[in-house]
């Protein structure tokens, strides 16, 4: 926390120094209405750092339309409703675009205000509702929709691995995990047939034990080829620990909610674990520009990015800056029109497409990482072919 604060202060100081008084244009402000404290803080921290790095690089190259970018911070204290207060505050200070937390429930309260005030909202939320349908035409997510990740896991398991029987273990606590497992099952049944789903079960992230769920799997007459676990830390890693302790060594597949290795100590010698995320932080991503980004991140903050979420924060401002340049204006209508014209726009996170109807990614490739013997490494980049958003 202290280090984060210091990093932010330092980058703000750097921003301040970069603005020479002789520059003609006034600085342009962007808002960060994020969780700087509370339980959501570790999830937002790397997005914030990524976004700050993008802004620093843009400013170093002379800024946007001649203006240096200045960040106005607001701490939502991990309380979603405070996001609305934050949006009002940073818009009052002149923010032209606002970064919101990477979750629909956390980001939406502020994004609604931004939409009403003609300000662009940027987020890493993986819910298609963070866009035209749920918020309005000024809300953009940089992520692959949960439905895209579920389809990706199904196609990868079926086509790349040749697996034919799956088991779905759903953490029924948040909407991301429900969409992830729901879309996996749908795509998996299309590919492999209804019978290829050996079973489904649910638990809650806070459940003290998943014994009964584990026993249901160990009691199957034929072991599934792999298990899809839709969950997040700490309940998800704890479930893996309990599965492994019961002798279930099958491959486990999951999406971005279990990105990062900060929890890996929960399962000693974590093996046969596969996760889809936005890029390998281990220097072995198939995309060289991803490796380059994480190297710059480490140089800037003196530590590795603990999840791939930082590249989302970075790419959001990269996208916004490109759109502003293209539009020649900070006006939300013009910037939004420029964003909507993105077709496989090369961003750090990968080729990104927006349309006037859809402000989230469906078929952009994701990196699949594996952990074997407690060591993480990239398997490759894969894109889903067929994604059902509902």
């Amino acid at each position: 926390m202290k280090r984060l604060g210091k990093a932010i202060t330092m980058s703000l100081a750097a921003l301040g120094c970069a603005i020479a008084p002789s520059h003609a244009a006034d600085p342009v402000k962007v808002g960060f209405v994020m969780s700087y404290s509370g339980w959501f803080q570790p999830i937002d921290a790397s997005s914030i750092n990524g976004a700050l790095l993008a802004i620093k690089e843009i400013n170093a190259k002379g800024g946007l339309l001649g203006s240096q970018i200045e960040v106005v911070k607001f701490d939502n204290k991990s309380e979603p409703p405070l996001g609305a207060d934050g949006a009002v505050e940073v818009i009052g200070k002149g923010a032209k675009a606002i970064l919101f937390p990477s979750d629909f429930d956390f980001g939406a309260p502020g994004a609604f205000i931004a939409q009403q005030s003609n300000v662009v909202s940027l987020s890493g939320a993986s819910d298609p509702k963070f866009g035209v349908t749920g918020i309005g035409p000024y809300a953009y997510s940089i992520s692959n929709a949960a439905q895209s990740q579920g389809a990706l896991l199904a196609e990868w398991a079926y086509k790349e691995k040749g697996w034919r029987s799956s088991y779905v273990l759903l953490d029924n606590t948040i909407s991301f995990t429900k969409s992830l497992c729901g879309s996996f099952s749908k795509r998996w049944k299309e590919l492999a047939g209804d019978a290829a789903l050996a079973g489904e079960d649910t638990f809650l992230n806070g459940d003290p034990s998943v014994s009964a769920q584990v026993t249901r799997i160990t009691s199957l007459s034929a072991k599934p080829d792999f298990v899809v676990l839709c969950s997040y830390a700490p309940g998800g890693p704890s479930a893996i620990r309990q599965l492994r302790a019961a002798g279930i060594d099958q491959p486990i597949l999951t999406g971005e909610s279990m990105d990062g290795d900060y929890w890996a100590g929960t399962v000693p010698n974590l093996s046969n674990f596969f996760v889809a995320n936005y890029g390998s932080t281990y220097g072995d991503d198939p995309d060289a520009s991803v490796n380059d980004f994480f190297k710059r991140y480490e140089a800037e903050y003196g530590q590795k990015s603990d999840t791939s979420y930082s590249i989302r924060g970075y790419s959001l401002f990269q996208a916004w800056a490109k759109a502003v340049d293209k539009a020649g204006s900070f006006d939300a209508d013009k910037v939004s029109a420029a964003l909507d014209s993105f077709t496989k726009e090369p961003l750090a996170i990968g080729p990104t497409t927006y349309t006037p109807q859809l402000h989230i990614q469906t078929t952009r490739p994701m990196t699949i990482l594996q952990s074997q013997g407690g060591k993480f490494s990239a398997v490759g980049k894969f894109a889903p072919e067929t994604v059902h958003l509902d």
Partner: protein
Amino acid sequence: MIDPAQILIDAVSVGGLYALTALGIGLIFSVMRLANFAHAELVTVAAYMLFAFSGSPVAVAILVAIAAAVLLALATERIAFRPLRGADSATLLISSFAVSMFLQKLLVFLVGSRPKALDPLPALSRTVSIGSLQVSALKLVTIVVCLTLLAALTAFLKWTRFGLQMRASAENFTMSRLLGVRANAVIAIAFGLSGLLAAVVAVLFAAQSGFVQPRFGVQIVIIAFVATVIGGLGNLFGAAVGGFFVGVVTILLQAFLPAELRPFREAFLFVIVIAILLFRPQGLFPARNLKERV
């Protein structure tokens, strides 16, 4: 087909943890009518101690965890609850919420909200074959530890001087004070014991879940509260039975509910709880002193 023996082992190991937690809560309630929500933080702090001492030998880490939980329990009693002794039970309840929230936020402030991984009993993360059954070694140890502690606690309450004093205080606090039982000592021992039980739960629970975070203890204590109420607030035997009961019912519901109803497992559990309380408002084993006298 799920083996019934497997379900039984699941149910008893989960129920045992609930029972130990419910006992820790029940001990305090029986001597001072305090529903101590801060019991969750005793569990949490003990688990953080296991994390902090994860480089040391297992025995050292466990002893430090126990010492920390006992000291914290005594400190909360001395600082937060003793000045309120004799206050309305609602006041006590609110103050225990305050202590609980304070400690939780303090932990977020000190160590952050991100879960920390720990593996306090690495030797137990494997399976043991019993006949055709594959059973996790940790589950077996959990069952043995829970049953041993229950027996030890029963022996303490039945056959020691302090045990007798505690039972007397539980039955009629004023009368036992008049007869020479020292209130401060009895209550301090009750808090110390609840700290010890919390630490044991922390070790077993952390070994099962493999992480600790600031709300670690809340997960289990919330359910243990339900167990205490079902068993009969103020009755220690009832608390233990209530703990096992909730554990067994949860596992059975998860194992036998049809897939489409499983997400609503908690709803079924609480319908059963409500049904029990409708027929036995004081719980299955009402504390004698809490019965209304005619």
